[in-house]
């Protein structure tokens, strides 16, 4: 039985080429086009660049690190499948925020609603591992208060107050008008402030 060897082939010689530069240095537009054409390496660079911000959004909106990880994971896979449809009308980060936001809202709506009294009981003990997400008591209280907000208010508030996005971007991300976004943020602030009033 003849066996033909398949030896590795030496790479073509390019005398004045630099050592292969890492795609980490690539500009975003190049990365996006590559990812749209199926280059997983380019998609990986994009995902790594944006994952911290997207995870923060998911963590603050979901109020739970495990659900946030699920949301981020599914949103990134979503993004890969739909990236051909990204037209460049908005920044890539805005588009990614939108994918994560939609995933989180879907998850929130499917969640069994927790009665307010139970939310209070769920405050973790001061030295429990869950508290690693909330560094201090008032931040823990804010986190709980956030979980009590209706999802559309919560999303707008997080995008504005924690992610620092402008009203135009938030409108693009949520599909609501800038007027509605402004209103939701205000309503969220008022509700949160009321819960936080006993705190110094």
């Amino acid at each position, binding site marked *: *039985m*003849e*066996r*033909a*060897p*398949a*030896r*590795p*082939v030496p*790479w073509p010689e390019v005398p004045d080429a630099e050592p292969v530069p890492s795609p980490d240095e690539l500009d975003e537009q190049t990365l996006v086009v590559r990812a749209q054409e199926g280059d*997983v*390496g380019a998609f990986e660079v994009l995902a790594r660049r944006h994952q911290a911000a997207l995870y923060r959004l998911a963590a603050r909106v979901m109020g739970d690190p495990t659900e946030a990880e699920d949301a981020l994971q599914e949103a990134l896979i979503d993004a890969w499948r739909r990236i051909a449809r990204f037209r460049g009308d908005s920044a890539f980060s805005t588009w990614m925020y939108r994918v994560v936001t939609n995933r989180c809202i879907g998850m929130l709506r499917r969640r069994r609603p927790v009665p307010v009294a139970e939310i209070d009981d769920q405050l973790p003990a001061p030295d429990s591992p869950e508290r690693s997400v909330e560094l201090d008591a008032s931040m823990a209280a804010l986190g709980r208060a956030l979980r009590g907000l209706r999802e559309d208010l919560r999303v707008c508030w997080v995008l504005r107050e924690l992610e620092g996005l402008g009203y135009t971007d938030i409108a693009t991300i949520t599909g609501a008008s800038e007027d509605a976004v402004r209103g939701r943020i205000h309503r969220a602030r008022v509700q949160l402030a009321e819960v936080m009033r006993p705190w110094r």
Partner: protein
Amino acid sequence: MTEPGAGVPPVRMHVSDAVVARVAAQQAQRVPGVVALRADLGQALLGIAGSVLGQDRPTLSADGVGATVNGRSAEVSVTIVTRLGHNCRDLAQAVQREVAAEVSAYTALDVHVQVTIADILPP
């Protein structure tokens, strides 16, 4: 198959699709340059298309290899992943030759192998 002798009934050997697929998978993984087999969802859903014998019976391709035995022939489909540094054409041909040879030696079937290189991983 054994020769019919006096009073001895002839033995007919049937080889199942699954056995052909297993042998093919094992051999394919031994070809230098094959990093892994990869399950091909498209193949599993649509069946192995374009065979010489016009066979379109869908076969399970969960491990990157599908096989259909039809009489004295077998159609095998292999999906592999390789790494940068190997010539794809040479690799594909090597897989075709070696898998066909091994399956044929094991089963006495006439084997046709289709290869798809699904991915070329970074070095």
